[in-house]
């Protein structure tokens, strides 16, 4: 795997990385952190009608050490946030985070003393899925967007975290 004189990756390196990307994108293993109503729609997405196994993402791993993608579905409140932070820290690189639903993206219509106004207050998020709850086809759309991100090698949200203004 040689590099050219100006530092650009050589032909074999790019082919190898493309092979890795192809393998990764068709085998995303989600960790569904389903707390509330969005969890029911996640179960619907994994069901037989909106089959997500077609996209390779059917292997739900309930242990963060074995998963690639953290799918936060539902409201996260201040009592639950440390638990979510710990799970995120336990996941291994490379990992992607999807905030599903209005509550995980920005607090939803709950603007009160107990709900975190979006999980991007404390962790980098790659894909936001709007909706309350989003229909299962939107979850499939999120998986496809992540596959495109892996394929093109686009920098993830984690690489520009924390965002400094």
């Amino acid at each position: 795997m040689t590099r050219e004189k100006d530092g650009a990756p050589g032909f074999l390196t790019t082919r190898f990385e493309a092979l890795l990307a192809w393998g990764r994108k068709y085998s995303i293993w989600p960790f569904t952190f389903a707390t509330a109503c969005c969890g029911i729609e996640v179960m619907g997405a994994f069901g037989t009608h909106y089959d997500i196994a077609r996209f390779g993402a059917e292997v739900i791993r309930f242990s963060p050490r074995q998963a690639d993608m953290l799918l936060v579905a539902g409201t996260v409140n201040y009592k639950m946030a440390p638990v979510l932070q710990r799970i995120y820290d336990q996941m291994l690189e490379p990992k992607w985070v999807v905030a599903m639903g209005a509550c995980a993206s920005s607090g939803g219509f709950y603007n009160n003393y107990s709900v975190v106004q979006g999980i991007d207050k404390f962790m980098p998020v790659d894909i936001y899925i709007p909706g309350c709850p989003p229909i299962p086809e939107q979850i499939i759309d999120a998986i496809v967007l992540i596959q495109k991100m892996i394929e093109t090698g686009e920098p993830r949200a984690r690489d520009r975290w924390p965002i400094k203004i």
Partner: protein
Amino acid sequence: MAEIEAYRREAGKLDMQAEPMILNIGPSHPATHATLRLIAELDGETILKLTPEFGYLHRCFEKESENATWTQVIPYTDRLNYVSSLMNNVGYVMAVEKLCGIEVTERCEYIRVLICELSRIIDHMVCIGTNMVDIGALTNFWYFWKPREEVYMHLIEPLTGIRLTTAYTRIGGLMWDLPDGWVEKCRDICRNVIVPAIADVNALLTKNRIFIERTMGVGAITPKEAIARGFTGPCLRAAGVPLDLRKDELYLGYDRFDFDVPIGEEGDTCDRYMVRMEEMRQSLRIIEQALDQLPEGPINVDDPRFILPRKADVYENIEALMNHFKHVMDGVQVPVGEVYSATEAANGELGYYIVSKGAGGPYKIKVRPPSLPLFQGMPHLCEGGMIADLIAVLGSVNIIAGELDR
């Protein structure tokens, strides 16, 4: 329970000659349907002491409703028990209508019965499906998910516009009337999709040796204990107490329908499963009768104090415009007082205690969640049993975190 006291007294007789181990079955666990936490003190596999904890989904329903108008509370209510959201909507507007003293029309009552019974069926399907996943029988989950998808796509979505969080009822009536062809589609789905699914799961589970061994005798409770702890719903009926608000406190005209209420004997997990399966069949009976008897007529009460005026009138004459403006900006004007109204939700008695000071929004709304006494009774059901029994019991008791934490 006496064995546990004996264990504690003769501490040297513990299995490993050591202290009991504390296991945290944490808030992010597949079997706890997320957001429930159980702290178990174990001696080997036997549970000595169980401490449940919740509050991981507290979304401040009460505080939000104090800052909203009466109609704006309705979307908050359907996120309480999110697997059967239509029932929460119906319960809330019934409480407000009791406070206002209005009687809804007959067609509205029939439609409310239809949506309540459909929600009851899909709630029981989720409960049994996920309970079986935790025990290890994944196929039933898929068998029950297909009817749920059919009900969502062909019945609830054409009716309300969205699959899950519906906000369909209004004070004094409903959002809009049934679409064309809904009645035939409902009959078709009930006969051709739900009945075979129940039959399939029945064939897989009811006489299954492994299922019986896993669930019979597990998490049993006596009627007296169940009443003292505040259990309601299928868990109470499985223990042998014949309490069903549809029969005892007639609301929504349930006396027009002919149905039975299944009562169990032992109060264990197997009885809870059987009671739920039979309740689904009885709900199908009610739906058939309601579809046959559905009358024509208006669905909203003819009272401009509670119902929005027709949109055509709002654009044409000034009184309707002012009426519409007052409804949207100030909210429905409800008399001063307090009221408690309970309905038989899928999980038990769902009660709304509403205090009104005459303003456009509530002064206080308290929801009496059916899952709270059930989760509180978990130590009584599980102490003395094994960890695997805890998982089976937790699934059968059907704790929905949305209504537990509100």
